[in-house]
């Protein structure tokens, strides 16, 4: 899922339908019982569902099979050729031999890249969205439309010049930090953080603006009458009320950054100091495309976190998707 979430505008009716539909899940189901749900439909859906699950399932099973078995027999013959081992996982995660994938470091990198980016993008976008929605000024509408349009600019357009700028301006700063704090390597996370934050901002501002601008004006007026300033209003009123949409966006951004490969390839330098899991995985498939005992376990390690996030927070995720927002 390494692609910019974008908002595709739909007309107000459709939006209403989407929202109503999602909320009315339970109640409407009772009213109309059977529509197209015939036996054929059930069979077809079952087949589609099975086809969709089997590839992941096969990888999962294989990741627990010993090397000789993975390489010589199909995972569907697991009952004829039984074998269970956790060696694949321990090897890819902890083995320190030079040829091993050493995923531990990359896993940590993925976390250290993703978590701050989610914080940065969400906070900066919330501030900008608040300004656009509640501080009246000329041109607010145009800035908003401009930001909206930016979502769809392919980030490929920005890569080369941004990298050049980082090398010219940011690298000296990174070196200076390394001089003072040797524990922080020259190739630090700063470049990847900034790049991801920037690429996440347009969708973030758009989503949050839609929500924040719907907050009742009386609340904000009342706070102003009581002498609150914009800073206080933002912290005490806007942020607490926007928690649902902040959560939705944060999940998007989390999955997007965690799953990204392109930005990582360009801005991380490719070393174990910074590069995330996805980059290491892509390398492994390239160089050691036949080492399935490693690839299966490694792939599954990279999938675990997004899957946990996805299954535990699916409600928020779907809400973000349907909040007039769709992604691509």
């Amino acid at each position, binding site marked *: 899922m390494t692609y910019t979430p974008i908002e595709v505008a739909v007309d107000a009716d459709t939006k209403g339908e*989407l929202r109503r539909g999602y909320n009315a899940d339970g109640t409407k189901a009772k009213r109309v019982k059977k529509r197209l749900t015939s036996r054929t439909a059930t069979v077809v859906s079952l087949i589609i569902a099975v086809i969709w699950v089997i590839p992941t399932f096969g990888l999962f099973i294989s990741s627990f099979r010993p090397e000789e078995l993975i390489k010589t027999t*199909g995972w569907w013959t697991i009952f004829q050729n039984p074998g269970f081992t956790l060696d694949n996982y321990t090897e890819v995660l902890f083995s320190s031999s030079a040829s091993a994938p050493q995923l531990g470091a990359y896993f940590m990198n993925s976390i250290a890249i993703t978590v701050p980016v989610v914080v940065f993008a969400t906070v900066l976008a919330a501030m900008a969205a608040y300004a656009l929605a509640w501080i009246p000024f000329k041109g607010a509408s145009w800035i908003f439309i401009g930001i909206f349009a930016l979502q769809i600019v392919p980030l490929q357009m920005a*890569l080369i010049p941004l990298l050049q700028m980082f090398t010219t301006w940011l690298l000296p700063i990174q070196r200076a930090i390394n001089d003072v704090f040797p524990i922080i390597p020259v190739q630090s996370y700063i470049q990847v953080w900034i790049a991801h934050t920037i690429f996440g901002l347009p969708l973030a501002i758009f989503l949050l603006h839609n929500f924040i601008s719907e907050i009742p004006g009386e609340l904000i007026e009342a706070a102003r009458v009581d002498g609150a300033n914009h800073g206080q209003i933002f912290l005490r009123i806007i942020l607490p009320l926007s928690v649902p949409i902040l959560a939705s966006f944060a999940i998007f951004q989390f999955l997007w950054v965690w799953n990204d490969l392109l930005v990582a390839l360009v801005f991380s330098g490719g070393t174990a100091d910074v590069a995330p899991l996805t980059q290491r995985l892509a390398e492994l498939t390239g160089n050691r495309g036949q080492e399935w005992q490693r690839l299966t376990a490694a792939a599954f390690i990279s999938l675990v976190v997004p899957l946990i996030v996805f299954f535990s927070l699916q409600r928020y995720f779907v809400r973000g998707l349907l909040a007039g927002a769709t992604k691509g």
Partner: protein
Amino acid sequence: MTTADLIGKIVQLVAGIAVFAAVVGLILFFIDRAPKRGRDVLQLLAFLLPALILLGIGLVYPAIRTAIAAFANSAGEFVGLDNFVWMFTQPEALITLRNTIIWVILVPTISTIIGLAYANFIDKSRGEKIYKSLIFMPFAISFVGAGIIWKFVYEFRPAGRDQIGLLNQIVVWFGGEPVLWLQSPPVNTLLLIVVMIWVQTGFAVVVLSAAIKGIPTEQLEAADLDGTNGWQKFTNVTLPGIRGALVVVVTTISIATLKVFDIVRTMTGGNFETSVVANEMYTQAFRALEPGRGSALALILFVLVLPIVVYNVRVLRQQREIR
């Protein structure tokens, strides 16, 4: 990873967030104490400028630079349309363009059709949520992960040996010879497209399913009273009712498909005639050190999504006027 490395990483993580929190905190603290004169402007700037500056230096300015660089060679000299001539005449570049077109036609169409059928079939059935989760799951994982999952499905073993890739095993079960799928054009491009469809269909299902539920029950009951069969009801009531959502799904998947990079990169590296514009852009700019050609390809990508941008901006402006 040594312990020192780990500590270094954690220090960076914590320090990064702490510095950011301190800066934002200071901004919010000081603007509330800004001098009365011009306070409104200061506050506006404090809220808006950080994001705008980042967007300016990170997206707007680079995009302009890229657009200009598309007309220069690797030494930075102006070469007119040479990069575009290269793109539209060299066989490899032409294959890239052809593949991108195949991708952008097949992926949105097939994902949407499967998604629509599936959403319609599972609507109000028992276990609808589980059905939806199963097909939506690939959407949460990375393209790299998806690439590995499917590479395993397409894996090849010579005839006579046990197959470990499911696809070749199925071929063998039906009495065929195993094939080196990913190395055989043109079928390999289609097999990469399957991966993208696998990822995107869940998105189509979730959005379309919500739209189907939004269709007024009265219309469906009226159709029932008129004695329509399932198919007639689908084409006459359901389809018109979800037109807006269909547009959303198709355009969104189209844009995602145009930018597809990771799947190709992971599964074939763009070899064996499978490259697409986004992958070729990366290869030219960062591997072949031809930033001019890379920029030209990026520009093409932009031109391809431009109609969708214009359409969406128009819809958005209409909405804002209504409000």
